[in-house]
């Protein structure tokens, strides 16, 4: 471990972010290279922690006496610094297999994306802003995973949320007028992008507030937010359960990841998140944002697993079942939307949602089994393989978009010859995503299927298997439409204009090649029982009571999984790659057409949300504003004033017969009497006074006369009355009040 690695691996990118505007002052190129340099250093620091986890499990490391407990002797190792000691919230980093795993994946993939950005963003005028947010994003993510407590984790959680807001809406200056894809007041491409950023922020925010509520309840019941303290002293679980809050807390806690990882029902923001630069999409999808939700569930899994299996609070079963079902259903839902997506990035976006669903499914299954390690490492393995191939696919898509100047797949086609490198590396990613036997996606999904089946969740297993077919289908569809289809009109037009579709520059394809290489390496490892390695790596982190032998390639699951994958691949191969069957002809079938419409409209969930939650809220508050705020509360004052005026007009006799109807009349009467003196009686009080400055004002001091407001005298009278009142009362009191 490099010195201070657990702190520096996230502090360095954050410092880099803060320093970016300064570097920009020196030179544009310097700023770009420094940003990449900082992210590479962060990756080095993060990766340097792995040996401590793998080799001897005992860190030979002296934290320079900053830590009061001295040198750590075991993993997990918690390094705490005082922050807010009064309320028992401190800053700290937790070094354990999970945090190091997440930090390593996040920083190393981010570093590759940053290198790629050098080429991809080379013409953008706002690169200072870009590098600032990207580095802050990486820093926030790593801080999130390294935190030893919920509070600090939530800080990172929100930092990445804010950065995603800034990055998704990054191109808010684009002034090209576009068609309105959704019924929203949106006037240009930049406006649409800004809207997308906001949608992402607000939607994930809904998850965040639920998460915050859960954290707060845990804090109140446990008195601490430190992960290690929470699992060491589990009395709070019992207290929560007795208060009937345990399951509520668990579900609230899970809503946070639902928002962040774009799971149903808060998945609607992710397709719009494609409005940002492709590198941002890659960062969000492969390495950081959406993985934060998976991380959080993995982090709290031992707590709830302990509650269920050691302490016997059976209500936690509901939590794990919810996690599993939300994951399984989201996997299916998103995959179905990916089948019909037009934009290459949206295919990948839906695919991410779907694959994250698999991870959630695995984590839910992990909790339902006594031996949670299998499900846990199924999720982690899939997280790793997905991070690699999804980064690869996104960056390849970026190269394609860069070359063809379009995001729509039906405007591409015939790129096979023009972009040979991208073509090859993208196939590696595509095969991994589709779960083609032998590739990383196959191995990781295999364990997820296995663990689902072992738990006896047949319905979820069926859902996952169908999703596997759909995944294979849309992956091949994407590859076919971009590379194998005949050249589209758009491409032909570009070529006619002299724009030659070309391969991406080296600074872009080298990271692609590295990612493809890593994907292949993981695929090969998968053949030689990579899950066993991971099992060793994670053992000790997850509460394991029964040690089991991992089955590599289950005789039932593996053939089934292969069969499902080919069920998706074969039709897609003939339709999109060989083009033996015409997709247009198929579209004429009314059932398929109806289904297509249903899926393109995203099951109408998005439209429903807009109608109910966005416009509904605005309409409700608009009505409240008109009817109550302006209609009743605000009227009070005017009614009050006009009543007072009327009263005064009718004459003091009437006033007296009505009685001293509250102090209101008294005050009003003072004002009115004064108005009478000034001959304002016929004019409404306010206007009258404002207009008729008249002589009285000038009689006051020369200075105040300059104010030119006739209300002065009135106010002075009122105030003077107050002073007289207080004096009288005081004197009266001092004179001998009982």
């Amino acid at each position, binding site marked *: 471990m490099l010195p201070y690695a657990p702190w520096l691996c996230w502090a360095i990118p954050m410092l880099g972010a803060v320093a970016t505007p300064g570097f920009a002052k020196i030179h544009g190129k310097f700023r770009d290279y420094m940003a990449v340099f900082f992210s590479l250093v962060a990756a080095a620091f993060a990766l340097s922690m792995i040996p401590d986890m793998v080799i001897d499990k005992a860190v030979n490391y002296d934290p320079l006496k900053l830590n009061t407990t001295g040198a750590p002797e075991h993993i997990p190792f918690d390094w705490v610094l005082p*922050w807010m000691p*009064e*309320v028992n919230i401190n800053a700290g980093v937790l070094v354990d297999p999970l945090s190091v795993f997440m930090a390593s994946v996040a920083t190393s993939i981010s570093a590759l994306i940053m290198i790629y950005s050098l080429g991809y963003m080379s013409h953008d005028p706002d690169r200072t802003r870009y590098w600032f947010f990207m580095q802050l994003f990486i820093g926030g993510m790593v801080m999130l995973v390294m935190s030893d407590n919920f*509070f600090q984790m939530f*800080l990172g959680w*929100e*930092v990445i*949320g*804010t950065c995603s*807001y800034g990055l998704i809406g990054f191109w*808010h*200056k684009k*002034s090209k007028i576009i068609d309105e894809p959704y019924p929203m007041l*949106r*006037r*240009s491409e*930049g*406006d649409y992008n800004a*809207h997308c950023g*906001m949608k992402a*922020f*607000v939607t994930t*925010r*809904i998850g965040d*507030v639920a998460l*915050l*509520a859960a954290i*707060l309840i845990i*804090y*109140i019941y446990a008195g601490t937010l430190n992960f290690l303290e929470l699992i060491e002293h589990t009395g709070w679980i019992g207290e929560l359960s007795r208060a009937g809050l345990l399951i509520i807390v668990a579900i609230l806690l899970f809503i946070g990841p639902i928002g962040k990882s774009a799971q149903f029902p808060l998945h609607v923001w992710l397709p719009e998140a494609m409005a940002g630069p492709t590198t941002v999409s890659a960062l969000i999808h492969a390495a950081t944002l959406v993985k934060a939700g998976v991380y959080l569930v993995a982090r709290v899994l031992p707590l709830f697993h302990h509650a269920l299996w050691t302490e016997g609070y059976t209500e936690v079963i509901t939590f794990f079942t919810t996690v599993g079902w939300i994951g399984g259903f989201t996997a299916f839902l998103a995959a179905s939307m990916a089948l019909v997506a037009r934009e290459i990035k949206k295919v990948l976006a839906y695919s991410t949602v779907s694959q994250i669903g698999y991870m959630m499914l695995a984590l839910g299954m992990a909790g339902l089994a006594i031996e949670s390690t299998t499900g846990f490492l199924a999720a982690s393995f899939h997280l790793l393989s997905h991070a690699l191939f999804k980064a690869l696919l996104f960056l390849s898509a970026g190269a394609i978009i860069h070359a063809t100047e379009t995001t729509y797949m039906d405007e591409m086609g015939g790129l096979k010859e023009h972009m040979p490198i991208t073509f090859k590396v993208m196939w590696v990613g595509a095969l991994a995503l589709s779960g083609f036997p032998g590739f990383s996606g196959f191995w990781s999904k295999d364990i997820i299927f296995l663990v689902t089946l072992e738990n006896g969740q047949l319905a979820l297993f069926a859902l996952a298997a169908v999703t596997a077919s759909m995944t294979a289908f849309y992956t091949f569809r994407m590859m076919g439409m971009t590379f194998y289809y005949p050249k589209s009109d758009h491409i032909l037009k570009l070529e006619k204009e002299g724009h030659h579709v070309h391969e991406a520059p080296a600074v872009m394809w080298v990271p692609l090649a590295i990612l493809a290489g890593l994907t292949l390496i993981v695929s090969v490892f998968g053949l030689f029982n990579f899950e066993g390695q991971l099992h060793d790596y994670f053992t000790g982190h997850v509460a394991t009571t029964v040690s089991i032998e991992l089955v590599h390639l289950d005789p039932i699951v593996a053939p089934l999984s292969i069969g499902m994958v080919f069920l998706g691949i074969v039709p897609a191969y003939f339709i999109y790659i060989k083009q033996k069957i015409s997709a247009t002809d198929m579209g004429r079938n009314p059932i398929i057409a109806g289904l297509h419409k249903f899926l393109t409209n995203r099951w109408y969930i998005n439209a429903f949300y807009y109608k109910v939650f966005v416009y509904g*809220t605005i309409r*409700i*508050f608009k009505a*409240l*504003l008109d009817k109550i*705020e302006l209609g009743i509360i605000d009227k009070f*004052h005017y009614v009050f004033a006009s009543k007072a005026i009327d009263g005064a007009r009718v004459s003091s006799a009437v006033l007296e017969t009505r009685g001293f109807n509250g*102090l*209101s009349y008294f005050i009003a009467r003072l004002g009115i009497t004064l108005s009478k003196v000034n001959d304002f009686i016929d004019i409404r*009080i*306010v206007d009258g*006074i*404002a207009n008729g400055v008249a002589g009285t004002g000038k009689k006051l001091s020369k*200075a105040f006369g*300059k*104010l030119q*407001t006739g*209300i002065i005298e*009135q*106010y002075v009278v*009122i105030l003077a009355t*107050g002073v007289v*009142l*207080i004096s009288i*009362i*005081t*004197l009266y*009191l*001092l004179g001998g*009040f009982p």
Partner: protein
Amino acid sequence: MLPGTPLQFPYMLLALLLPPCAAVFLLLTLATGKKLGLKVIGIFSSIVLGISSLLLVRVLLLVMTYGTAVYEQYSWFSVGNVTIEFSLLSDFLNLPLSLAIILLSTVSSVYSIEYIKHKHDFELYYFCLLLFATGMLGVTLATNLIQFYLFFEGMNIPAFFLVSGWGTKKGKTIALKYIMYVVLGALCLLGGIVWTYSLTNSFEIYEITAKLSVMPYQGANVNLLRSVALLISTGFGVKMGMFPLHSWLPDFHGEAPVPIHALLSAVMIKTGAYGLVRVTYFFFPLVIRDASFILAVLALITMFWGAGMALVQVDFKRVLAYSSVNQVGYILLGLSTGTTLGIAGGLFHMVTHGLAKGILLYSAGSLVHSAGTKYIPKLGGVARKMPVTATVALIGALAIAGTPPLATFPSEFLIFAGTFQAGFILIAVLGVCSTALTAGYYLWTIRRIFFGPDSKELDIMYEKYIKKIEIPEEGIPRKFEDVHESPALMIIPMVVIAISVILLGIFPQIILQMIYPAAETLSNLIGGA
């Protein structure tokens, strides 16, 4: 007797009296007919306020050294055998707010130099500004109720003139509305004070606290105490803008000139909250404990009402004004819980919200100054022309929405933690949800103003202005092309506060260590956890 350590040097008295002396000096120059010029007046006032700030910082350091409250005792007047003192006291409860008041006044004073350049009567403007600052500071430092009342109501006079004299055209009408409300509130407060005197024969806050806090145990009529508490709280509720007494707030704030709006929103309404704590909480802890749930519900309504109304406004300043109602709800929610965490959060939020709201208002002022309007539908794409203002406004908006690592997050966290601790689970969950609503309306507003396509409305406004068809109430219209970043004297205050918001978010300990002991005392008194 006052608690704490007496001070040998009149730091607080000087801090309190310097601004009004300077104000009188400005008036004298006016009377002698000497024109000083805006720059001179502005810098002079800022320096005076700056000295006051430094004096208070010194008091803060002394309080931290002694570890107790510090006070200065002066006799004021005596009637019969009763002597009314004019003593000043600083402890951890009022120091954060006092500092926020005087520092923000200083910043507003600097900011005004550019902002009111196109207006008139600079001497009188600064005269009122200085008196306004004195009024607010006097409230926090006061030790007896007469003194407290005089400052509490006295600050309305300069506030009134500032809005009616230098606000929008509607300001004159609106100011009267304001006076109507605050006079009603003042009468309630006055009644409460007199009633309290009848119970305890004293005006000294600390004496009354000692006498009243034991009273319920001595068989006094609890209903009587409740009525007094209700009367006093109504007085403070008007000032805080608590639902349904908030009607004056959006109007009055919305029509005020921006530097004054910043003071009104950021600190003036907090004096109401401070009064609630210093007077009601200390005098009637048991009544407050009983009323805890009602207060929390009221706070929740205030939160949602403010947020909802802010969502549907079209004037940026009115969005901010309703947002103040919204945020007062948070403060009240924290205070209502009676738990240490909640009260600490509420007190902390007074300061952090003050800063965050300050940022937003100064950026609104920057918009009025440089883009010529604050109406959201007329703006759009301004971020390209005013990058600093846009960035700072975004920081402010995210801060108020409670986004870490900005300063309001720790305070909101403590408020909601306290609410959960008090057992108001549903209220707390709903309260946390309202932060999503807050984020929603703020980001929507920011997007409509700063992002999106270039505004064409600005050009139309400019045409109308040139042809004298329509002259806007505030600011001078510009063509979109001519919109530019505001001058340094406006930008620097914004950036300084924005940085302080970020720093306080990362190191909340700076203020929390002061507030926490005060909150502990209060919650012990109330009997919360």
